C-alpha cells in the first residue's frame, strides 16, 4: 500500500486547476516517479492538445457526458461500449492490474478530486431545475439527482458495458466522495443498484 505524503493532500483536495498547478510547483522537489505520474495525470486531465489555450477538464467531462449516454443506452448501446473503452484508456484503467501501488493511490485521489469538482457544481441554481429551467430544484432534489448521476458514472455505465472490474478503482473513489457529499446517499445509491439488477 503506497502512502502519499501528508503535504500532498492539499494538492489533491484543491479543485481549481490553476491553484492545483501552483501547489504542485510549490511541493515539487526533485522529480521522482510519483511527481512524474502526477504531472502526467494533470496534463491529461486539464490539457486539450487541439486547443491548448482553452481551460478544460476532460475527466469532469465524463461526469457531464456519460450520464446522458447512459439514459439513451437503448439507442446508443454500441456508442456506449466504444465510449467506455475510450474512457478506460483515458483514465489509465485499460489494464488496472498493471498499475503500481503508487499509481493506484494517485489515481484514486485524482478520481475523488474529479468527483468532488462535479459535486461542487450540483448546488448551483440551474442544476436539476425543472420546467424549462424556471423552477429551481430543492436541496433534496439536487442531492437525489447528484446521487443518480454519480451512481450512473460509477456503477451503471460499467455494468452496462460489462467492465465493472476495470472500473473498480473509479467506482470506489466516486462512492467514497459521494458519501462525504451526502452521508445519507447510500440509501438512494443502494436503491438504484437494486433497481438496476432487476
Amino acid at each position, binding site marked *: 500500500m503506497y502512502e502519499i505524503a501528508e503535504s500532498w493532500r492539499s494538492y489533491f483536495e484543491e479543485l481549481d486547476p490553476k491553484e492545483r498547478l501552483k501547489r504542485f510547483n510549490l511541493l515539487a522537489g526533485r522529480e521522482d516517479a510519483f511527481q512524474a505520474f502526477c504531472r502526467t495525470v494533470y496534463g491529461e486531465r486539464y490539457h486539450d492538445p487541439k486547443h491548448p489555450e482553452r481551460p478544460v477538464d476532460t475527466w469532469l467531462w465524463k461526469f457531464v457526458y456519460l450520464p446522458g449516454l447512459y439514459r439513451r443506452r437503448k439507442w446508443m448501446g454500441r456508442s456506449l461500449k466504444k465510449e467506455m473503452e475510450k474512457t478506460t484508456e483515458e483514465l489509465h484503467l485499460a489494464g488496472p492490474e498493471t498499475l503500481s501501488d503508487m499509481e493506484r493511490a494517485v489515481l484514486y485521489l485524482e478520481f475523488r478530486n474529479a468527483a468532488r469538482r462535479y459535486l461542487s457544481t450540483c448546488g448551483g441554481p440551474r*442544476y436539476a431545475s*425543472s420546467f424549462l429551467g424556471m423552477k429551481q430544484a430543492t436541496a433534496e432534489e439536487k442531492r437525489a439527482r447528484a446521487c443518480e448521476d454519480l451512481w450512473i458514472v460509477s456503477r451503471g455505465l460499467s455494468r452496462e458495458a460489462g467492465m465493472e472490474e476495470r472500473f473498480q478503482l473509479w467506482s470506489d473513489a466516486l462512492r467514497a466522495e459521494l458519501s462525504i457529499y451526502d452521508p445519507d446517499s447510500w440509501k438512494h445509491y443502494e436503491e438504484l443498484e437494486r433497481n438496476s439488477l432487476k
Partner: protein
Amino acid sequence: MSTLNSKNFLKSNAIWLVFIIEVIIFAIASGGTFIGPNNIINIARQVSYYGIASIGMTFVILIAGIDLSIGSIITIVNVVCAYLMVNMGVNMWIAVIISLALATLIGVLNGGMVASIGIPALIATFASQTIFEGVAYLISGGRPISGYDSNFGIFGRWALGPVPICAIIMVACFAIGSFILNKSFFGRYFYAIGGNEEAAELSGIRVNRIKYLIYALSGLFAGLAGIVLLSRSGSAQSTVGKGLEFDVITCVVLGGVSVNGGVGSMSGVVAGVLIIGSLTNGMILMDVSEYTQMVVKGVVLAVAVGIDCLSKKRQAT
C-alpha cells in the same frame, strides 16, 4: 425474467404503442378511410412542417430552454419569401435563401437574449414572437400575398411518385437532427448542457456559443417549415404560424424530451409528431370541431408534461 423484459420493452416503447392504438381506433372509427393510401399521404403532408420545426425545438428543450418564436418565424418566412417573389420579382431560390437566413438570424437574436443578456428563454422568445408577428403584419399589411412562381410547389405540393416531397424533406431533416444528436460533438454538448450546465462550462464547453448555435438551428428549421407551409398553402398569410409553437412543443414533449433538459431522443420526437399528426387528421375525419381539437391538443400537452414532471418527482423521492 421474461415478464420483466417485456415490461421494460413496453415501458421504453410506450410512445409507439400509443401511436399504434391511436391508429387502430381511428381506422375502426373511420371505417378504414384513416389508413387508406390517400389519407396516409395526406397525413405525411400535414405533419411535414411541424415535424421539421420540432427538430430545432428538440435541441432547445434538451438544454432546458424553449422557443416560443417558432410560430412567428414560420409566419415571417411565409410573408417575406412571398413578398420577395411577388412584389420584388426575386428568383424563387434566392428568396428561399434570404428567408432562411432571416429565420436563422432571428434564432441568433433569441440566442443572444438568452445566452448573452440572460433573459429567461420563455420571455426572450415570447418577445421575439410578438415583434416578428408585428413585423409580418407590417410587411403584408394584413393581406394575403399570392401569385408566385408555380415551381415553388416543389417544397409542399409536388410528389416523387406517391411520396410528397415535403415528407422527404422532413425525413431528411430528421436524419440530420438525429446525426447531430447522436453522432456529432454538438449533440454531446446539447445533452451535457441540459444535464449540468455549470459542470459543462467547467469541463471546457463554451456554453454560450452552443446556446447561440441551438437557437440559430431552431430558427433555421422553423424557417424551412415556413417554406414548406408556404408552398403547400399557395398564399402567405400573416396569421399562418399563430399557435403552431404549441403543436410543436406538444410533439417534442410527447416524444419524451424532458422539459427539465438533458433527456430525449429524435426517434421519440418522430413518434410524437406522428401521434399529433394522426390525432389532428383523425379528428378532422371524425368531423370534430376546431375548438374541440384545441381542447384535445391542450389536454395532450398537459398530460405529457404532467407525466414528465411526475416521473421526475418519483425519481427524487
